[in-house]
């Protein structure tokens, strides 16, 4: 997908003015936060589970090469095939050649951010293979020609009236007078339309929440059941997963599962946790004949051992964006690429380059709410700051910003000069405010006064007044 992150500011401004979007975001920010809190409060061990889950991923990342090799051995032993893809293009080609060999015309897809990352749908369509998204949210945005605005709620930015409009536009074979006013009727219609697709598809593509090295198992965690139909009914199942999805054992997966759904949707467990290992076996009545895993790197190996290493613990629950005031304000599309919110602000520069995604790590108040809810204890603000450091080193910030910062730092590093300058400037500024005590606008403070007033300094600086007090005290003591 085309990277639009450089236009973050413009896109954010548009998003803030978009009433439909703001209405949808209003609902989103209340729902997720409350549900997560309820689930977390109900499990006394939750904080300890976070630490435990984190330790599992830390251990895995230290031994990533070995666990991937172990995983591969088990996949092959269970009759599956593993395809290693260094880049998005490698992964796309691997999918295509499997589809070609299967003579596939239609592929059904379970929800998968990794296939968004490699922009698989556009590619397959160009190659004459029709991808059908089957997750309700993904289906809706596919109809609209959009990308997900949230990693677990792709259509989070939409209201039901917009979905109704799309369904009426596309499902023209259905009676025009039908009632689509409620979410129930919309869901029913999507189910009705998608049902036959699972049976007709030649290939089913899913992502993976975990890959288990011990057994060669891939795990998907879903609520709708579309992922299961997608991987059970077609003749070929392709799993597309990035390399950091591997965990050592089933116990390790179980441990992380305890924090995943709670952090994501506030469920104790998602409805369907499905562990698949290889293709159909001799006396299986159902299941795919072929089982392929595409292991994607796409820049992740370059994060290992750097200050962004810990980002590889991410399990894509979405809690960070669910709790992010900036995400709430602008929605997911403003971020301009696949991954929005705080995790996107760290990951996107890693995967597409900070020269293109430089706004993202800057557009944070560092309120720290993301880190406080992250089930894998990823220090997201710290890593955003690391990106800012890289930008600063490379001189990527705007010149006015650098100048302002340099001017300020010059004084901040020279206390005597700072005292002198502020003791002249502050009383002057205070006097300038007159009796109103507020500035509605001020040169060099446009960023502030565009939307809010600036209170005038009280009078003289604290330091000036303190010095007077000390002097008076000494004189008082002397007399």
């Amino acid at each position, binding site marked *: 997908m085309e990277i639009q992150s450089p236009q973050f*500011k413009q896109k*954010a*401004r548009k998003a*803030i003015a978009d009433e439909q979007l703001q209405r949808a975001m209003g609902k989103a920010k209340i729902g997720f936060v409350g549900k997560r809190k309820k689930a977390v409060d109900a499990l006394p061990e939750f904080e300890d589970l976070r630490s435990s889950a984190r330790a599992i991923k830390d251990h895995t990342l230290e031994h990533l090469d070995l666990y991937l090799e172990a995983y591969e051995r088990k996949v092959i032993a269970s009759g599956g095939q593993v395809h290693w893809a260094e880049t998005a293009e490698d992964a796309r080609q691997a999918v295509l050649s499997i589809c070609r060999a299967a003579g596939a015309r239609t592929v059904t897809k379970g929800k998968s951010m990794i296939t968004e990352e490699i922009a698989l749908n556009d590619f397959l369509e160009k190659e004459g293979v029709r991808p059908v998204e089957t997750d309700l949210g993904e289906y809706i945005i596919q109809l609209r020609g959009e990308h997900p605005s949230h990693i677990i709620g792709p259509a989070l930015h939409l209201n039901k009236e917009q979905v109704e409009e799309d369904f009426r536009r596309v499902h023209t074979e259905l009676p025009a007078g039908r009632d689509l006013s409620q979410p129930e009727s919309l869901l029913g219609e999507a189910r009705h339309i998608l049902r036959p697709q699972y049976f007709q598809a030649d290939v089913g593509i899913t992502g993976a929440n975990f890959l288990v090295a011990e057994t060669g198992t891939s795990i998907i965690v879903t609520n709708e059941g579309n992922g299961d139909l997608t991987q059970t009914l077609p003749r070929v199942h392709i799993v597309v997963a990035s390399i950091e999805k591997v965990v050592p054992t089933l116990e390790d997966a179980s441990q992380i599962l305890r924090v995943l759904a709670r952090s994501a949707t506030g469920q104790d467990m998602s409805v369907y946790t499905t562990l698949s290992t290889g293709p159909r076996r001799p006396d299986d009545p159902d299941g795919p004949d072929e089982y392929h895993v595409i292991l994607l790197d796409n820049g992740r190996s370059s994060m290992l051992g750097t200050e962004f290493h810990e980002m590889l613990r991410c399990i894509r629950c979405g809690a960070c964006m669910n709790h992010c*005031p*900036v995400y*709430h*304000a*602008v929605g997911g599309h403003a971020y301009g690429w696949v991954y929005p919110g705080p995790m996107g602000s760290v990951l996107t520069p890693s995967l597409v380059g900070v020269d293109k995604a430089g706004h993202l790590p*800057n*557009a*944070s*108040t*560092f*309120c*720290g*709410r993301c*880190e*406080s809810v992250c089930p894998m204890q990823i220090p997201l603000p710290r890593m955003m*700051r690391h*990106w*800012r*450091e*890289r*930008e*600063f*080193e490379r001189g990527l*910030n705007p010149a006015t*910003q650098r100048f302002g*910062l340099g001017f300020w*730092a010059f004084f*901040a*590093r020279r*206390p005597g000069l*700072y*005292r002198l300058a*502020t003791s002249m400037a*502050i009383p002057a500024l205070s006097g300038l405010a007159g009796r*109103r*005590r*507020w500035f509605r606008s001020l040169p060099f403070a446009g*960023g*502030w006064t*565009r*939307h*809010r*007033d*600036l*209170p*005038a*300094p*009280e009078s*003289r*600086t*604290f*330091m000036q*007044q*303190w*010095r007077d007090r000390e002097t008076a*005290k000494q004189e008082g003591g002397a007399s």
Partner: protein
Amino acid sequence: MSERTGSAEKFKPAKEEPLKEESISPKRVGLFVTCLVDLFRPTVGFAAVKLLEEAGCTVEVPMAQTCCGQPAYNSGDREDAAAIARQTIEAFEEFDYVVAPSGSCAGMLKKHYPSLLKGTSYEARAEAFSGRVHELVSFLVDVLGITEVPARHEGSVTYHDSCSGLRELGIQQQPRKLLSSVEGLELKEMQNSDVCCGFGGTFCVKYPDISNKIVEEKTASIEGAGADTLLAGDLGCLMNMAGKLHRQGSRVEVRHVAEVLAGMTDKPAIGGGGR
């Protein structure tokens, strides 16, 4: 010097006095004023001094302080940030405690200086310094064991939890505890008091539209609480919220929590009296 030690008996200490052996001699506190308090609202600084002196501390204000360095640090300029960190540590090294009337600046001094100076000749000094740094209200409650203040404030207040104080330093119950002892004061909690106000230091001028959207949500919560006065522990957040409330024509007054705890609400609120 007797004037400085103040009257500790005004405060009711907690049942179990922490740090008993130290309470014999007055604690020497270096006040880190913070640049915003120094320049925009000295009242907060004097409120902090009053609270500390009444709690039996001697308060000194080293002149070699400027700013905690966050603007540089959060803009990716480690070099300037580290220089400011070294300068601050040097200025405050002689004190038993370093206290700041700001969760954000205290968090910078306490949590970020050590990582900023890690691997330099200042590493050990930064670690030792970190152990002595406290935010004002948590210092009063957690270190000095104070449970009540002898202040009076007629009216209702609502309290915003500033992010750094809340999430870096765990400041949440301490201000509420002391506020509940203020005579005549009624605390009316707002919805989502723990959600960011959109200030974020340089964020609010780099991304003014997003910042504005966030502070609009915040002022709606503030108005929804129905209190006369908004309090918080960080002047940056307070100026942001006060500036928005004023632009919106709100009647809610805005103050630093220390002003109320120190009984200094006779002074004009932020933006002082004028409308």
